């Protein structure tokens, strides 16, 4: 069988490209041929992904379309008679970007408006979470499935936390919907009322230099010298951040999946999170999830997790168990079933 993958953009650290690369490795193990194509390609990954303009599939080739952004050039793919599987990685609602980066807001808005066209134009529309699959159904997809993110375990292990003040961690792009500003507020309350020497580490690439400067300004005002911003770090450095963290706190308002939760589970870091988007199903019972917007409550939860070893151990145990549901072998079965369903549905049609 020949299976081609189509992406709007491909880059070396991009989450969607990473998934496509893992898919390709699996396809190779299953004896599938095919190539991966993208409209825009970062030169650092040019060897693995081919330019979309050279895309010319045979009629029976299966097409896996990864959808995560406005992709006008991929529309033509929908007109092809090939069996098609859509993998939806989610598009952030535009409202989070209008005030900060209108161009991105326009792209997000178009990306969500264009989604029904893709959802209806394929044989099977799959979300990487039930939340995403729900959006596909709302967009008019006839058949939906869930193919969770294929999570490859970090090549570093959990270690005993070094002695020292507690470290609160969040990993995710510095964007308005990830609410690093609220986390800085909650952290500041925690420092004032519970642990004066606590540290906060925020890892992620900023949306814009101006937005990063706003967050840095807020941190300097509320918790001077206690917040560290890190971007452009290597995998090894990222794993180091998890190994040093006492608790991972995610106050994000929109998440299609939230891979950092699984990374935190891998490193036995207890998680406190807001129930947004795919967070609830990814976290399962392995995180403390609350929709209460009182930052003082978040501060008290951080204190509770840091000071209660029994609670921390139970969360770590459940986190490790949770990772089992996202093991590559488990998810690979779902991916294979989706491809089989697409070819079967196409043959029946």
């Amino acid at each position, binding site marked *: 069988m020949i299976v081609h993958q189509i992406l709007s953009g491909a880059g070396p650290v991009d989450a969607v490209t990473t998934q496509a690369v893992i898919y390709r490795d699996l396809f190779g193990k299953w004896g599938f041929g095919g190539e991966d194509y993208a409209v825009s390609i970062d030169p650092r990954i040019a060897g693995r992904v081919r330019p979309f303009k050279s895309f010319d599939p045979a009629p029976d080739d299966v097409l896996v379309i990864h959808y995560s952004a406005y992709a006008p050039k991929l529309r033509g793919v929908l007109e092809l008679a090939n069996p098609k599987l859509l993998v939806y990685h989610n598009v952030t609602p535009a409202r989070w970007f209008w005030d900060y980066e209108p161009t991105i807001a326009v792209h997000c808005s178009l990306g969500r408006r264009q989604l029904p066209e893709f959802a209806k134009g394929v044989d099977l529309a799959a979300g990487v979470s039930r939340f995403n699959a729900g959006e596909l159904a709302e967009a008019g997809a006839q058949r939906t499935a869930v193919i969770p993110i294929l999570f490859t375990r970090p090549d570093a292990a959990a270690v005993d936390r070094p002695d020292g003040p507690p470290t609160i961690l969040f990993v995710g792009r510095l964007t308005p919907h990830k609410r690093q500003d609220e986390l800085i507020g909650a952290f500041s309350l925690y420092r004032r009322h519970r642990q004066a020497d606590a540290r906060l580490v925020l890892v992620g690439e900023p949306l814009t230099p101006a937005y990063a400067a706003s967050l840095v300004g807020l941190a300097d005002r509320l918790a001077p010298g206690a917040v560290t911003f890190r971007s452009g770090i290597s995998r090894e450095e990222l794993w180091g951040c998890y190994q040093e963290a006492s608790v991972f706190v995610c106050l994000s308002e929109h998440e299609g999946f939230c891979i950092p939760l699984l990374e935190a589970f891998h490193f036995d870091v207890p998680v406190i999170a807001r129930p947004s988007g795919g967070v609830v199903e990814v976290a399962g019972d*392995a995180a403390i999830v609350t929709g209460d917007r009182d930052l003082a409550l978040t501060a*008290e939860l951080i204190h509770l997790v840091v000071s209660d070893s029994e609670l921390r151990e139970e969360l770590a145990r459940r986190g490790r168990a949770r990772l089992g549901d996202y093991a590559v072998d488990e998810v690979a079965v779902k991916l294979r079933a989706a491809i089989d369903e697409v070819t079967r549905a196409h043959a029946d049609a």
Partner: protein
Amino acid sequence: MKPEQAVAAARSSLERERADGSYSEDLEGWRVQPPERPSTDSLLEWAIIEPDMDLVVSTRRWGAPISAVKRVLVHLTRQYTAQLASQQTRVNVHLMGRLGELDERLADVNHRLGDLENAELGRRIAELEGAELGRRIADLEDADIGRGIGDVESPGRE
């Protein structure tokens, strides 16, 4: 403690802390505030694309010949750039028109909502006033009946 008990425990602890005067900060200004949006007047002004030819200059020392070359280039490409500016202006002007319409409709909806809320408020006040009036009448009636009963029970009291 089990994770399921954590939120309730944190809430209880927070209540105790607050009762002792902790966590009393005013959190106003504790979030990143979005930058101020351009006003509708500014947007209207920007909608018409009119490049300022006076700005086509070289700021280098002895830049006069460079300015002259730039202006010649602008002149030579004016057919293309004028088309570009007119297309962009057309889009902008139509968008501003739509925005104006939406603004008016929103104002109208808000106005009607205000009317409805006022009408609802008036109705509720009337209901309350009616209920209050009914209660007072009932009180008066009860008082009259009581006095009447009292009169009957002790006819010789006066």
